[in-house]
């Protein structure tokens, strides 16, 4: 991939001084930078890297992006890792299925079986990391390893600074799996977390804070003309004759889609409006279709509720159009990672109402860029308030866009990575170039 992108493509979007600084900082980075994750497409990490790699190259930094390979068993194991590291609602974690014992002997057998299964999981995980380490050229000055899948590549580190970039919440993990992964991760020179809440106190290495970001020039966020927006809405049979409330999210229980519908129904009694629920079903989520059917059932008979299942997935332009057509955007999650979809909404100048979970409160500053809702009633009250007060909606939307401009765009993310590389080469807290 020899494609590059100039940071000056963002000249009309961010301050010129930031772009100048990116160039100045990049001049001090010497050597090769390597990023490794699990996939080139699908998901937030790949989305960020797609832009990040082009921009690093555009700054004249020799940059490579590799993905780890493995068989179905390996990716099934890393999916399990992901699920049990990422805490669940109320702090409980999802653990692999364990049968109820009927006797002490059964209990023992079950525990031995479980331990054997985990041992096999760990062996398969290390086996594929070893294969990848033999196949990849890891000889780089800075190696960014994203998430747990390739974390054990550190075992063959020869040189350079290695950084473990964690995109998930590992604050409340399954202890056995975390203790297994902690061993390789502790060998890194530093780690990066998206929010302080997602970090671990037991790593023993430097921990930097780098929130994720959106790319304002990607199809998902680029400006659209009214004609383009209308074409997408026409395609899905939506008329813009009444205000639109939208939640873009997977059909997943943790996104609280029934709660969004309940809030909408309360508002609808007072103000004529419509609701778009647009999302897909994750291929590895067995509950997804069930949630979709429950949502359809709850929306039955409500002609102004548009439940849109993206199958095949919606294009990024379509998602962009749904958000831009909206008066209010919702992200009423019960549990969330960073919830970058909130920044996507704010970037379009829309007020966003979200659940106070994960990274959402970093993006929604209550009553400044949107509202945090703690209940269906709270969400309904805030929606109605925004629909009745276009000036308030405009003010929150504008502040939200500025908040994203300064904190959640790819250019800030790029600056953070450059600063971290420089920090690792100069351990002092004040670095003078």
């Amino acid at each position: 991939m020899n494609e590059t992108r100039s940071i000056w493509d963002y000249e009309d979007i961010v301050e010129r001084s930031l772009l100048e600084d990116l160039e100045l900082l990049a001049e001090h980075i010497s050597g090769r930078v390597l990023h490794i994750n699990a996939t080139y497409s699908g998901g937030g990490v790949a989305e960020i890297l797609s832009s990040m790699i082009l921009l690093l190259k555009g700054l004249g930094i020799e940059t490579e992006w590799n993905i780890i390979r493995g068989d179905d068993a390996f990716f099934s194991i890393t999916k399990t890792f992901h699920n049990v590291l990422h805490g669940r609602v109320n702090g409980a974690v999802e653990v692999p299925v364990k049968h109820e014992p009927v006797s002490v002997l059964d209990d023992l057998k079950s525990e031995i079986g479980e331990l054997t299964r985990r041992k096999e999981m760990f062996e398969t995980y290390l086996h594929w990391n070893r294969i990848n380490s033999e196949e990849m050229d890891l000889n780089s000055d800075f190696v960014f390893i994203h998430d747990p899948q390739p974390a054990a590549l550190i075992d063959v580190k020869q040189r350079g600074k290695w950084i473990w970039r964690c995109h998930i919440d590992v604050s409340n993990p399954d202890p056995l799996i975390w203790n297994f992964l902690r061993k390789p991760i502790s060998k890194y020179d530093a780690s990066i977390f998206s929010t302080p809440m997602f970090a671990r106190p037991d790593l023993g290495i430097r921990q930097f804070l780098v929130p994720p970001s959106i790319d304002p020039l990607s199809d998902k966020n680029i400006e659209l003309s009214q004609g383009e927006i209308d074409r997408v809405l026409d395609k899905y049979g939506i008329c813009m004759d009444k205000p639109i409330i939208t939640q873009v999210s997977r059909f997943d229980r943790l996104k609280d889609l029934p709660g969004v519908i309940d809030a909408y129904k309360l508002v609808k009694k007072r103000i004529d409006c419509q609701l778009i629920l647009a999302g897909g079903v994750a291929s590895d989520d067995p509950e997804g279709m069930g949630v979709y059917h429950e949502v359809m059932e709850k929306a039955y008979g409500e002609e102004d509720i548009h439940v849109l299942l993206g199958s095949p997935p919606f294009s990024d332009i379509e998602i962009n159009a749904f958000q831009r057509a909206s008066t209010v955007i919702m992200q009423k999650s019960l549990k969330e990672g960073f919830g970058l979809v909130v920044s996507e909404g704010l970037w379009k100048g829309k007020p966003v109402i979200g659940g106070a979970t994960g990274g959402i409160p970093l993006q929604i500053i209550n009553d400044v860029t949107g509202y945090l809702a703690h209940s269906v009633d709270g969400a309904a009250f805030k929606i109605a308030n925004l629909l009745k007060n276009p000036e308030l909606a405009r003010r929150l939307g504008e502040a939200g866009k500025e908040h994203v401009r300064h904190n959640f765009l790819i250019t800030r993310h790029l600056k953070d990575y450059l600063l971290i590389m420089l920090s690792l080469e100069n351990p002092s807290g004040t670095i003078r170039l």
Partner: protein
Amino acid sequence: MTDFIFYRARYQSELTGKRARDLPELLAAIKEIDESSIFNHIYHALLDSHFLPIGYPNDFAYWVIDALHEPVLAERLANLDLREFPDLEALRKEIIRIIEDYMAMYDVSRRADVGQEFYFIRCISVTFPTRYVVTNMNEALETIKEIDLDSIFYYFIASRLLGGAHYKELSRWIRGNNSHELMEKLDNLYPYGFANMDALRNEIVRIIEGYFWEHI
């Protein structure tokens, strides 16, 4: 006459691993954390506030009202007169005094909800020369008018507190241009009472232009 190169700083957040859920924990951590954490939570927020006013000018005050619902203490912390502190240690002592005084008078058993803890974050500062190079005071004035707000923040707030090397260089250069009185005026400028960094820049420009008028 020597050239003067304007510098700028960019900051990177690093977790300290310390966090607090109530006032005693906040106080204990403030006593221990390094100066760059004090700087980050008091001054970095000041820089952020130039585009997004949220009512409280520093992270401690904001957390105390938002997570602990202690408006009296939040107001005291918000009202810190930053002119009084020649360095970050002096500021740390004053924050400790304010919190201890409050704890002696009020019940402070309230704890923040899970997820609302205060996380102590230090900032790594990376300073580097910008492309702005000036050879005389007129050029310096024109540059200050157009330079970004991060540089204004760096010279007139950050550099003064974090060792002050670049602020001293600016001071030496201005004095070297036969502008001692101007530098005294800039030294006496209180940079914290402005609504935002633009207002601070305007005041600096006003001082320099006023000085020019007086000395033409």
